[in-house]
């Protein structure tokens, strides 16, 4: 029996699964306007532009609510498919805001603020009686002053556990113009999560510009993630802000050990250029950096994944994510080879619990009762034809 189980009351249940990447969607793009003032309110908000098309419009086909609203926009269906379906005790929401593609930084900051006020009212408010939806403060990193203001405005909200930035950025995130944002994040003990963004943004999705196929676009996410990771370490952000933590979401993780071996090796010769680094580059990982699992790599030989986990110190840096409601969703029971019990606990729960200061047990709620499934909303299931194209 774990300590958590030992301490639980009859009204509490141990926290065993935290999903670190779930996307809440607007029911309608105009929903955001209620949270905006002029001169922004009447403008068209730039949205995610799909030039590389994933299967199924990028959504699980069973994640579209019966009423035809967008996938990921109905909290009851999310409760059914995640909180009940995979048994997630908490989900960390990552609004797909595509802020980084908005060229006007002032407009971008206004849109970020609207996303936050919207989610506070909905997913973190009216939709969240059980408190199992947690989320991320949306900021526009292209406007560092406004980003800091937004962090100051919202830090301390009980359900906003991190800060969100997009992978597509004007510059790598270690650079000095971003440091005020990271300072504010560290001061409020809020990790910063980087999530992949639209392929149409301030920078192309690969170092060699725009690929031809979605397959290439999606496979190459790690190239951008590596650039941000190496930048954050080399520029000494974690020395400057010892409490700063950074999370890489949806960029894969199997590449981590080799890129850090390479950086460690180069650092031994190039150290004098970056003498603020007091440790080997890879030594910053355990104290400051986390990775989410989805989309988990699936080597032909599943044991190879376990070897990779060992090389990358997955026990301390890796956190489960499903990426619901996207097409490449990972089911925690099916996506992984059998894991040793301790490693499993770290990846599926403990690493995220420690990062986000979540409790070891949570109150039981109506979703834990078996009767509630009868009243469950149903998705459109297998009867769907082609789902409608959603732009947000």
């Amino acid at each position, binding site marked *: 029996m774990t300590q958590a189980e030992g301490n639980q009351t009859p009204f509490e249940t141990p926290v065993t699964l935290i999903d670190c990447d779930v996307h809440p969607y607007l029911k309608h793009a105009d929903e955001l306007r209620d949270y905006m003032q002029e001169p922004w309110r009447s403008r068209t908000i730039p949205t995610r532009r799909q030039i590389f098309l994933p299967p199924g419009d990028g959504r699980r086909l069973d994640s579209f609510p019966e009423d035809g609203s967008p996938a990921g926009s109905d909290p009851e269906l999310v409760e059914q498919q995640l909180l009940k379906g995979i048994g997630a005790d908490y989900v960390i929401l990552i609004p797909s805001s595509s802020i980084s593609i908005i060229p006007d930084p002032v407009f971008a900051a206004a849109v970020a603020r609207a996303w936050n006020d919207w989610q506070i009212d909905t997913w973190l408010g009216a939709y969240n009686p059980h408190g199992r939806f947690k989320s991320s403060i949306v900021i526009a990193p292209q406007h560092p002053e406004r980003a800091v203001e937004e962090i100051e405005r919202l830090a301390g909200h009980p359900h906003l556990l991190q800060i969100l930035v997009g992978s597509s950025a004007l510059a790598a995130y270690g650079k000095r113009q971003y440091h005020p944002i990271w300072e504010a994040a560290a001061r409020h003990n809020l990790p910063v999560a980087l999530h992949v963004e639209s392929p149409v943004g301030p920078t192309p999705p690969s170092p060699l510009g725009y690929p031809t196929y979605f397959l290439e676009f999606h496979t190459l996410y790690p190239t951008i993630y590596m650039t941000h990771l190496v930048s954050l370490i080399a*520029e*000494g952000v974690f020395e400057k802000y010892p409490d700063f933590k950074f999370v890489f979401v949806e960029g894969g993780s199997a590449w981590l050990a080799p890129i850090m071996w390479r950086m460690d090796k180069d650092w031994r010769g190039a*150290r*004098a250029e970056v003498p*603020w680094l007091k*440790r080997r580059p890879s030594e910053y990982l355990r104290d400051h950096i986390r990775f989410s699992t989805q989309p988990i790599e699936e080597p032909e030989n599943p044991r190879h994944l376990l070897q990779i986990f060992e090389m990358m110190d997955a026990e301390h840096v890796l956190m489960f994510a499903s990426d619901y409601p996207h097409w490449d969703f990972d089911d925690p029971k099916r996506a992984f080879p059998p894991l040793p019990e301790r490693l499993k606990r770290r990846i599926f729960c403990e690493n995220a619990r420690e990062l986000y200061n979540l409790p070891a047990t949570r109150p039981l709620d109506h979703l834990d009762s078996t009767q509630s499934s009868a009243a469950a909303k149903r998705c459109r299931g297998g009867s769907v034809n082609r789902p409608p194209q959603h732009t947000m």
Partner: protein
Amino acid sequence: MARFVVGPASELPPSSRRIVNVDGREIGVFNVNGLYYALRNLCPHQSAPLCLGEVTGLAVSDEPGEIEWTREGEILRCPWHGWEFDILNGRTVFKSKARVKTYAVQVEKEKRPSEAEGVETYPVTVEDEVIILDY
């Protein structure tokens, strides 16, 4: 412990070095601000001729973007992969297990050739001091 006469001290002024062959081992002798240090001419990383590397200083920093230059002349940078070694103790300036072998060096009054048994000798003046390497 054997002794090897490196040569007259006057021939190895501050900031200079000499690589000597001692029983088949190459050893670099460095004059750092008037004190002598000796390191094996063999980098513990990939066996490069370490002592041919640049003698430099140590960049340190307490704040990203700000660099202070210290210990000029006390750091040896490997000519292959650029690892920095502290000439004073043979250790890498970054934390590692790698360490180049060091040797004790002394300066003594020159002895007449007949007293220096079985070692290489150099033509020196009577007033010279000589550098002795223990190995």
